[in-house]
């Protein structure tokens, strides 16, 4: 297991370097001179050529690309992602401060999705072509097609405007968590449900299930202990991927529900052309995604010895 873990860790290094390169390279897409933009913001007027030159020197913008990248990378490795143009606050701290709130709704949404999707997916597989199965297929089709921002408003309309049981937006109590988490979790519910179903069907068709049945195990033992456990292995991967997707997709939900997470922060920064924040966001989310992938790989190894021992 240790060797497996080490191999995975080594693989992360080049990919992380690639991520940092993409994040740094992105800054070169910006139209206009960053020094001029910064001065315009700070001074509130057109800066003189002399001022621009001076700031370019201070920011060392005229150094070759490789030098600037190396300098920036050195900072990023030690947790220094630069400072926000808008607030002058260190980007890394701002991101870390808001990340737990995004994590909160994403984790809650995903937990809800798993709780609903696993039993339903299992039922759909065990009772194939039953009404449960057909219903789950229709629900999955529609929820895959509905835009999350539209679903969010349908939920607000139902629960906050008509029934008035939940707040429209904001934060504070547990009630504020419900709608954002629900919106985030819904799409994953469908995916996980269908995946659990097809994986269960796959496992149920295998020889050891027939053996289990033949030796007189109860259907319950066969379905839960033998089939579901094996079916869960691929489901784990998708749960990890969905989680990363939820964190990235939280921008829309956070904007709608005025949830002060990392997604809303980056969207505000985009409109304010606060480039260091956008850059930091890319490195940060890329790193989080890598970490999630690592956790998935490790749990995969724990769940399925065949993978860990291969090679």
């Amino acid at each position, binding site marked *: 297991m240790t060797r497996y873990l080490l191999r995975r860790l080594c693989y992360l290094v080049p990919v992380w370097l690639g991520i940092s390169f*993409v994040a740094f390279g992105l800054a070169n*897409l910006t139209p206009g001179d960053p020094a001029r933009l910064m001065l315009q913001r700070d001074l509130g007027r057109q800066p003189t050529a002399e001022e621009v030159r001076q700031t370019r020197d201070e920011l060392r913008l005229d150094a070759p690309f490789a030098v600037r990248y190396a300098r920036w990378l050195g900072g990023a490795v030690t947790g220094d992602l630069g400072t926000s143009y808008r607030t002058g606050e260190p980007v890394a701290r701002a991101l870390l401060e808001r990340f737990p709130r995004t994590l909160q709704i994403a984790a809650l949404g995903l937990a809800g999705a798993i709780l609903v999707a696993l039993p339903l997916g299992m039922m759909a597989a065990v009772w194939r072509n039953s009404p449960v199965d057909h219903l789950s297929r229709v629900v999955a089709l529609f929820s895959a097609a509905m835009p999350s921002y*539209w679903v969010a408003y349908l939920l607000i309309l139902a629960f906050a405007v008509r029934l008035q049981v939940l707040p429209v937006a904001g934060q504070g109590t547990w009630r504020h968590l419900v709608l954002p988490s629900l919106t985030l979790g819904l799409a994953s519910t469908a995916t996980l449900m269908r995946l659990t179903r097809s994986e269960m069907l796959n496992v149920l068709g295998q020889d050891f299930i027939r053996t289990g049945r033949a030796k007189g195990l109860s259907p319950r033992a066969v379905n839960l202990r033998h089939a579901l456990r094996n079916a869960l*292995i691929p489901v784990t991967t998708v749960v990890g991927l969905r989680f990363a997707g939820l964190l990235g997709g939280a921008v829309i939900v956070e904007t709608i529900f005025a949830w002060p997470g990392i997604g809303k922060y980056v969207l505000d920064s985009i409109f304010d052309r606060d480039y260091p924040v*956008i850059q930091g966001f890319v490195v940060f989310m890329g790193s989080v995604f890598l970490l999630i992938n690592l956790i998935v790989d490790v749990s995969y190894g724990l769940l399925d010895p065949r993978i860990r021992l291969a090679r």
Partner: protein
Amino acid sequence: MGELSVRRVRFAQRGGDRRAWGARPPRRGLLGRFFRDRTAVAGLFIVAAFALVAIAAPLVAPRDPTEVDATAILASPGAEHWLGTDNLGRDVLSRLIHGARWTLGTAFLAAAAIVAIGVAIGLVAGYFGGLIDDVLMRVVDVLLAFPSLVLALAIVGMLGPSLRNVMLGMVAVWWVDYARVIRGLTMSMRQREFVTSAHCVGAPAPHIILRHVLPNVIPSVIVLATLELGALMLAISGLSFLGLGAQPPTPEWGTMLNDGRLFFQRAPRLMLYPGLAITLVVLGFNLLGDGLRDVLDPHLRR
């Protein structure tokens, strides 16, 4: 991995269900098989209907989508405005009809670029292998290391909000899926006799790739593109909804949803209709893609 088995089960199950019906001839033409799949035909119907509306938008729309009418602000649906008007008195139905142009059009355009880039890179990496393949696949690995929305969002953020930049961001991120799938197919194609024999008679690599490999990967490309068009459309209008893509008064569906936000309690229909339109089209593409996959390429992932 898991995907393989998902696909196998799904296919076996569909085929199995059908065989149980009994007296059907085992082999039929592609079209025949496609049209027996009722959900796929429904998908084709939805997509074709919206595409027609998009093409014929100026002919079908009762009014100009940007025509402001101060006397009919937030008017309810009625004889004059079938789906009512928005906060500026613009005819919602006309905006939806023209919106089909923007939403479907941008998705098609972006998809075309994505397919061209992804397929070209996949073919080159898969056919030549070696160093080219290694380098290209490391790039793919890095791009796959981001949740796709994060990178697209960052690209738009750096370039500045506009529909063109949203499409650029999408293209920059999404070609990766195609490159990976096409690379895999190309690599397996390389082992086939017709490719090795073409190589033996001295056909140059570009000729082999274009005449022998490409035609064989096209079915997979069609399936993948259809399946992903829906997701692409959701992503593009999502960014438009955030205000990053199409800017008002463009009647893009995501932008319309964004415009309707402020008036959402007074006139929820301003948000209901565009959302419904997006849902229907995406559903149509997903159904059509599923059907095409079963017919053209049962071995494609997802």
